[in-house]
């Protein structure tokens, strides 16, 4: 099942500059594995060594933060949009 994934600026180097990519998976966890297959190195930027999503990155399925649904087991359905949002600090 293909869903659109929004890649944040800091990770777009890995996706060849693309902000919007397609990936497959029935859960967020599967989706991250599929992203890793398509864009090697991306998983290590999103998840820590234990495979958990890093604390300064949030993943949203549509408008909802997966931390408040089922974490990386959150189910995906056709047409969902997944956003990966890191903490950013620029202001100067």
């Amino acid at each position, binding site marked *: 099942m293909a869903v659109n994934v*929004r890649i*944040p*600026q*800091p990770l777009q180097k890995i996706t060849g500059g693309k*902000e*919007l990519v397609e990936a497959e998976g029935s859960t967020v966890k599967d989706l991250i594995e599929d992203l890793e297959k398509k864009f090697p190195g991306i998983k290590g930027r999103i998840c820590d060594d234990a495979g958990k999503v*890093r*604390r*300064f990155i*949030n993943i*949203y399925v549509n*408008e*909802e*933060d997966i*931390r*408040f649904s089922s974490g990386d087991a959150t189910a995906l359905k056709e047409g969902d949009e997944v*956003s990966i*949002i*890191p*903490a*950013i*600090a*620029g*202001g*100067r």
Partner: protein
Amino acid sequence: MALRDDQIERYSRQILLPQVGGKGQEKLLAAKVLIIGVGGLGSPVAAYLAGAGVGTIGIIDSDKVEMNNLHRQIIYTGDDIGRSKAEVAKERLIKMNSDIKVNAHVLRLCSDNALNIIKDYDIVVDGSDNFPTRYLVNDACVLLGKPLVHGAFFRVDGQAMVIKPKEGPCYRCMFSEPPPPGAVPSCQEAGVLGALAGTIGLIQATETIKLILGIGEPLIGKLIIYSSMEMSFRKVKVPKDPECPVCGQHPSVTKLIDYEQFCGINKKEAK
């Protein structure tokens, strides 16, 4: 406090709005807003709040104006290079609107001075450029119960949110920990589109004015994400985290901490 004739003339185009009116203008003139950092975000925030007649504007910045600031930090000119940003900003804002009071705080906000400075203001706008200051400002605002207007950018993307302690989530509810040092390049290293800083700054200025006037739907519990390349705005929900260390049910942060240590920055390396 009745409006003078010159004030009615100066602010007439916003007094005309049903959302503002004379009463709203009086609220703006009575408001005290603190802007942390007068850089890419703080410059447009300060300019528009001064224009709107926010009666007391505090500005904190310890930096001096540099040539490479001018492409985005619109309240400075080439003549200001080398001068204190907070002092130049004060002069400029008073020139724009002599009706307001501007406090220039030429210092770096830290755990020792934050509560004392912030307590005198009604609303805080975060235009800082580093994680230790952002977590410090968040925690100080939560501890004091002051609304905080968050904004941040990275290259060609930006974010903004309103943090209203007790009512909605705080920055830590969204990101419980900062990225490790070096994981995210700074503006100095990564660059930024000047106009993008303006867009995010103006979202912050707009949200600040809405909070003062009590109008519209503030960005509480919602993060707005702006992509300048796609020219798209999206909103995601930010729930209040019951486990939040500063505003959760059992907070572990009850006073300000060492934020450079929290962000993994060795003090000797920190600027």
